[in-house]
Structure formats: structure tokens, C-alpha cells
């Protein structure tokens, strides 16, 4: 049994919260740089150039790329031969978020109750998801999620007869309805299969896969490519002012499902598609 101190988890999460909010992942930065050169529509190109300038300033000066430093989504791959000692795992993650958002001068954007809406003042609790597998590893991913894009998510329980076409149309329709609101260019996370709750999680996890890594299954890699083309044919463009670059990428994750069901979910991310991973 490998022992990991809760304090080590908290320290890692603290550092990752700050890093995620100030340094854009290399794959996202590369996409924005390329698109700022290749975008054919002038107002769209101007916007993309400003986005590049923005994340360069943020990285250089260690300031948040975006003022919505998000709800801290923390994904944990936990080996079953790991024991967290000197504290609880969830408490450690929340302590890391508390410290990171405080010391990093990040915005505290969490309310304790959805209707009474009192700010918790330290951006906790984090949204924590743990998956347990054989081994003695502990891998953390911190993905601060802004709600301008989160609010534009959609979920449908399609009939199996809707098939591939129905799923694709739902994705395109979701991006079209979101329009300028989620800060395009967006990253489109798509979940297909599982259950009502699982499919939403799949869509969010899809946002974590780097933009330069297509789906391992060629069938879904082709679908990702096709959906990206169709999304970028909508003409929404950066900020919704028109243009080709509506999305930087489409990422799909799937799960086995019931004979009667075809759940599909779309979780949009803005161009500040933040995520940092680390193994302890």
C-alpha cells in the first residue's frame, strides 16, 4: 500500500489552480495562433489576434487569462493501492483550491446554495470526480470551468433510431443556439451513451483531451473532424461577430448504454480551455 499525505495533494492542487488560470495549455495556444493567421474574415482575425495577445500577457505576467477563473473541476484517477494519510482526499483538494484561489488572486465564484446565493468566499467546494483503478498511482487534473460556456450546455435522451445523424444534428444545433454567448471560438465536448448523469460527465471529460490528439477510434476521430467542419461552417465566428473560427475542436467520449437509449450531451468550453494534469 502506497501512502500519500493529504498535504501533498493540497499543495499540488494549489499550484495547479494558479497554473491553469494563468498559462493556456500549449495545444489550445497553438490552435489560436494558427487560426489567427488562417482566419479569412477581418473582424474575426482581429479578435483572434487579441486573444493571442491576451494569453501571452497572462502567461508573462502571471495574471488570470480570463476574470472568470471558474469553478474548480478536479478529476482524480486513484489507484486502489493508494492510501491517503493525515487527512481526507476531498478535504485536501478543497484546501488546495482555497489556497490556490487565495494566493493566486483568482476570483471566488462559488455560492453555497443555488437559490440563496451566498458566496463561499474561497471558491470551494470544488467539483470533484474520482475514478478508481488497479495500481498505486494518483493522477490529478484541475480544469477551472467558466460558466459563460457552462450555461450553454445541453443534454438529450434521443431514441436509438436517431442514430449517428441525430447525434450530429444535436451537436450542431447546440453550438448554433449558444451562438455568441459561450465566448467562441469554443471547444465542443460531446458525450454519447451511458445514462442521464454519465453522459454529462463524458461531455465534460471530453474537454480534457488535447486538441492535437484525435479520438483513438477512427470512427469517432472522423466524426470529430466532420463535426468541426460543420460547426465552422455555421459562420458564428469569434465573439459571434461572424467568421470561420467558431470552434477550435470537437472532442467525443462514449460509454456503453441501454438497448432503449441514446443519450447525448454537449458541454461547451470557451477558448480559455484550461486544464493542468499532474501525477503524484
Amino acid at each position: 500500500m502506497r501512502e500519500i499525505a493529504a498535504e501533498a495533494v493540497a499543495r499540488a492542487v494549489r499550484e495547479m489552480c494558479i497554473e491553469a488560470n494563468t498559462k493556456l495549455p500549449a495545444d489550445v495556444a497553438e490552435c489560436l495562433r494558427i487560426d489567427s493567421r488562417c482566419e479569412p474574415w477581418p473582424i474575426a482575425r482581429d479578435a483572434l489576434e487579441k486573444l493571442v495577445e491576451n494569453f501571452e500577457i497572462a502567461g508573462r505576467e502571471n495574471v488570470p487569462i480570463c476574470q472568470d477563473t471558474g469553478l474548480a473541476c478536479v478529476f482524480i484517477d486513484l489507484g486502489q493501492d493508494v492510501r491517503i494519510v493525515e487527512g481526507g482526499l476531498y478535504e485536501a483538494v478543497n484546501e488546495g483550491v482555497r489556497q490556490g484561489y487565495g494566493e493566486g488572486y483568482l476570483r471566488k465564484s462559488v455560492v453555497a446554495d443555488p437559490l440563496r446565493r451566498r458566496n463561499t468566499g474561497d471558491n470551494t467546494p470544488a467539483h470533484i470526480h474520482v475514478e478508481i483503478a488497479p495500481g498505486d498511482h494518483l493522477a490529478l487534473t484541475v480544469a477551472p470551468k467558466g460558466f459563460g460556456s457552462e450555461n450553454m450546455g445541453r443534454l438529450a435522451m434521443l431514441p436509438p433510431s436517431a442514430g449517428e445523424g441525430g447525434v450530429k444534428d444535436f451537436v450542431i444545433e447546440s453550438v448554433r443556439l449558444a451562438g455568441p454567448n459561450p465566448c467562441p471560438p469554443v471547444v465542443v465536448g460531446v458525450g454519447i451513451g451511458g445514462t442521464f448523469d454519465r453522459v454529462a460527465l463524458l461531455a465534460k471529460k471530453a474537454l480534457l483531451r488535447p486538441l492535437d490528439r484525435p479520438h483513438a477510434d477512427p470512427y469517432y476521430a472522423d466524426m470529430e473532424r466532420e463535426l468541426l467542419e460543420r460547426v465552422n461552417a455555421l459562420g458564428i465566428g469569434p465573439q459571434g461577430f461572424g467568421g470561420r473560427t467558431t470552434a477550435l475542436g470537437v472532442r467525443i467520449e462514449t460509454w456503453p448504454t441501454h438497448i432503449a437509449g441514446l443519450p447525448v450531451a454537449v458541454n461547451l468550453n470557451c477558448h480559455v480551455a484550461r486544464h493542468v494534469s499532474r501525477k503524484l
Partner: protein
Amino acid sequence: MIGIRVETPLTRERALAFRAGDAVLISGVIYTARDAAHARLVELLDRNEPLPIDIRDALVYYVGPTPAKPGQVIGSAGPTTSYRMDAYAPRLMDLGLRGMIGKGRRSPRVIDSMRRNGAVYFGAIGGAGALLARRIVSAETVCYGDLGSEAIRRLTVRDFPVTVVVDAHGGNLHETGMAAYLEFAGRKQAGERPIPCRFRPADGCENTARCRWTPPPC
């Protein structure tokens, strides 16, 4: 940076001259307010109490900045999505609010109120909070400090870059910009053919090997 320079407060006459798509650089005082602050302002109005800011010919910026680091005027400060303020904005425009700065769509009711009152909706670049903060030269809390990031602040901005998204005549860049682009792209409807790339290797495109557009456009 290029744009029509304008100083606040913004008169009705000046506001009426803007057209959707205009690039504008704002200088002067603007006020921050987002969800929670708007709810409080409208509560004051419901009780017939005076507002804590002079709303006439004022500009409100929908923003909740990150905390300022030592030595900074303000933290990152890009726009938040505007539709959440749609429920409140017409009340404020009826009292003379001349402009709003945010991002994303507005409701038909807000756009109606803008036409009636001669107000403008500006878009700042969503997600460019570090860049936009550089155009803010001073910031002080006016009220609702207990709301933290959502407090009402008085900002002084210099050449703050925005685009007119909806003008006082109903012109709407989200609609016209998308239509103009799609026309440029040579298609009647979305989703038919890939759009040719503006660049060719001869034009200096260095991205041919890594181009993400299929089929390879260059």
C-alpha cells in the same frame, strides 16, 4: 488600436450616431455591475429609493474582475455574458442609462428599450481579461463591497476597445456579421462546402504542414 474615440458620459445624440460593427475606444468613467448588483439596484427602484450612481448618460460594464495583485489597479477584467442582465437593463435605460458593455446576445425586450431610449450595447472581447485590464487606469468600489467581485466599481478607462454589437436603431452585429461572413464564404446555407482559405504558400502561409482546415486549403 483603431476606433472611434468617445468620452463618457455619453449623450443620447452621440449614442445615436453609432452603428453596429463600429470599433470604438471608450475613455472616461464607467461603472461595473453584474448579476447581484443589478438585483440590488432594481430592489432600490422597487422601493422608490435613489440609486448609488448617477445613471444618466452612464455606461455600465458587465464584469466581475479578479482581485488586484499588489501594485495592480485591477485584476483581469473581461466582460461577462450579458443576457443575465436582460431582466434588469430596461429599468435602468428608462432612467437614462446610455450604454452597456458585455458579451453575447440581448433579448428583444432589451433591444426595444435601447431603441426607445437611444442606448447602445457594446461588446468587449470575451476571455481577454488580461488585455482589457490594461486599459483601466483606476478602480474604486462605490458600493456593495460585501459582494466582492460583484461590487459596483467606478472605473476610469483609457481607449477601452469595444465593438458596437447592437445600435440604438436595432442594427445587430451578431446577425449582420454572420450573414456578411456567410455571403463572403459563398454559401447560401451553413453546412454545405468547406470554405477556401485566404492564404496560399505564396502569400506567406507557414501553416501548410499543420493546417487544421480540411480539405487542405492551401
